[in-house]
């Protein structure tokens, strides 16, 4: 935030100069306005660039070197979550297909095919925008769900029903119900923002070949389906490897295991194999992501109530 406070003051100066120039001819005025704008821009660059470099370096250090100690588990837990988010910042937009394989306790399976478009919202007080388009089962082909995610308030959501050509604003209070009959709730794969939970670091322990920070996180959203979650985040890439979900009676409900992490743009890790197991019903869902495309040029206008009617 501090890096913007200095250039923010400059337009006032520019405006004052502009007023003084008012009596001169149009051409000179325009020229002056351009010069002032240019000067403002240069000044802003000069001030902003070094500050942002310093800030990034400081953050980098904070994330990796100076994680708060075990004596302050809340601060340590929060810092781990912040680091995960920081490593994902700047992805811009992404687009990918996913399949879900639903298996019930008797081993019967059914399949879902979806496409997911995400637009990163950089404002920390808001969640990302997403568009989910259903391809299979075929009876819901073309149905689309548009969400503007919020941190602690219900998201803004619209559903497009292709048979009626109707876009319907829907209530999004409940994010904890089964998503398309799967073991995933919308809550589980909607945008994971730091502000959605409070954190307590529990311990560091081995997880497979890696070491993981084990953190307990408590959803702050009042209509969450969970009392708490235990998350295993690896200490090298800060990606979640496993999450346990406890239901509203504080009983272990589900375990999510994330595997097949792939690196995009040398920067963004994405799990391509998410396996959710419901311990109370014996049902499982395997969510498999196809190749993810980043920075495909999606803009605000791809996430409107008009665009969802033609989502492809």
């Amino acid at each position, binding site marked *: 935030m501090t890096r913007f406070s200095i250039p923010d003051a400059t337009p006032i100066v520019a405006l004052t100069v502009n007023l003084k120039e008012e009596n001169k001819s149009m051409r000179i005025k325009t020229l002056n306005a351009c010069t002032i704008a240019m000067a403002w821009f240069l000044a802003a660059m000069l001030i902003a660039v070094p500050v942002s470099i310093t800030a990034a370096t400081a953050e980098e250090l904070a994330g990796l070197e100076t994680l708060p100690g075990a004596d302050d588990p809340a601060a340590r837990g929060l810092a781990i979550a912040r680091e995960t988010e920081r490593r994902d910042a700047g992805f811009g937009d992404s687009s990918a297909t996913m399949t879900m394989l639903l298996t019930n306790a008797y081993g019967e399976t*059914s*399949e879902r095919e979806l496409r997911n478009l995400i637009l990163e919202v950089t404002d920390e007080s808001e969640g990302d925008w997403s568009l989910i388009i259903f391809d299979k*089962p075929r009876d819901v082909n073309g149905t689309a769900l548009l969400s503007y995610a919020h941190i602690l308030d*219900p998201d803004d959501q619209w559903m497009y029903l292709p048979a009626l*050509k109707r876009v319907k604003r829907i209530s999004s209070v*409940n994010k904890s119900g*089964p998503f398309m009959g799967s073991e995933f709730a919308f809550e589980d794969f909607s945008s994971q923002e730091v502000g959605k939970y409070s954190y307590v670091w529990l311990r560091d322990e081995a997880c497979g070949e890696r070491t993981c920070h084990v953190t307990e996180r408590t959803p702050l959203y009042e209509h969450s389906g969970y009392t708490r979650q235990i998350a295993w985040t690896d200490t090298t890439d800060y990606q979640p490897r496993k999450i346990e979900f406890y239901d509203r009676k504080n009983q272990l409900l589900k375990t999510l295991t994330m595997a097949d992490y792939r690196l995009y743009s040398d920067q963004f890790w994405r799990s391509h194999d998410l396996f959710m197991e419901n311990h109370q019903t014996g049902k499982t869902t395997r969510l498999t992501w196809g190749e993810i495309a980043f920075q495909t040029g999606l803009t605000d206008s791809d996430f409107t109530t008009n665009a969802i009617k033609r989502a*492809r």
Partner: protein
Amino acid sequence: MDKRQTMRAVTVLWGCLSLTAPAVAADFEFTGYLEPELQAFPNKGNVQGQKRWNSSVALELTFEAFWEKGDQYIVFTPFGRLDAQDGNRSHADIRELKYAYIQGDWEFRIGFDKVFWGVTEVAHLVDIINQTDTVESIDGEEKLGQPMVAISTVQDFGVFDFYLLPYFRERTFPSMSGRPAFDIPVDETLTTYESDDKRQHLDFAVRYSNTFEDWDVGVSYFQGTSRDPILLPTFNGPGSLVLAPFYAQIRQASIDVQATKGAWLYKFEGFVRRELKEEHVQATGGIEYTLYRIFESSSDVGIVAEYIWDDRGANARNIFANDAVLGLRWTPNDTASTAVLLATTVDMETKALGLSLEAERRFGNDYFASLEARFFENIPASDPLFSFSNDDFIQLRVARYF
């Protein structure tokens, strides 16, 4: 729709499309469903020729071609039904045949298309672009494709849609042997229009819509041929009493609003219509509330309560003049996408009662079954639904998607 005119419209449109379609690689998609249907009518029909049982089969195909990352596309959706009893219900329609071009915040569409406006669940008052395909369903939700030129733009201050509607689609009506149907049949050969241009009258519509946080608001204007015909009792050639559809010219301004407040949805829509030198108002509004995860299960129960009002009072043209609707929707959120909707409609004036049950679920990955039952009770002769009073029915459809 006149078949020759349909053919001509299709030929012209196809000509335009082949000119615009470039020789670039496009993504093609072909989908559709085949859906047999069985209907049972527990009561004997009022009219000779009406049977207790009926069967039919419907087929809808969708061909899509996209190119330039979906910024240009063509969609063609023909639909048809073959009905064992009702010749009028055996019909074909072009639900969609359109070319669309998207340039930034602008969208341009030409061809047959479907457009939905509105927020309420029962009466769709402001939804006016498309004609209702009554023989498909009496709930008014099935629509005929409408030829149009449409331009939409999404701006910071809202969405604007402009429509030019160069050709009119007449409402479909069941024949003598069809059910449910009016006791006096509609004779479409006696259709008349207020405008001398008849079906060629150029209609237009404009709509502004926007979202203001929890509020979704739409304001629309329509000028042209009324989609809702006046049915005039008259004698046809052989001297039988029939209803002749008359389509007046109307001007209509409408508004639709939805407030989404947590689990509560508040809805309102209404219009002022000027028709045959008279103005009248219709409005509907209500709530939708969802109880999530009842009894700690994954089931949701939704409650819909709506009221529908016509300032002309009880009248022969509107089945919803002073009606209240209460509906309950149960969705267990299971793998089969099961949903059950129970609804009851009461005419506050005539005390006529309508009951409906709609249940649906998926079987396997590609089959989808829907059961619908409608019962009409206590319908006095003064109610426009009187003809339906012995047309209670139970209907089962099983669709195979591909």
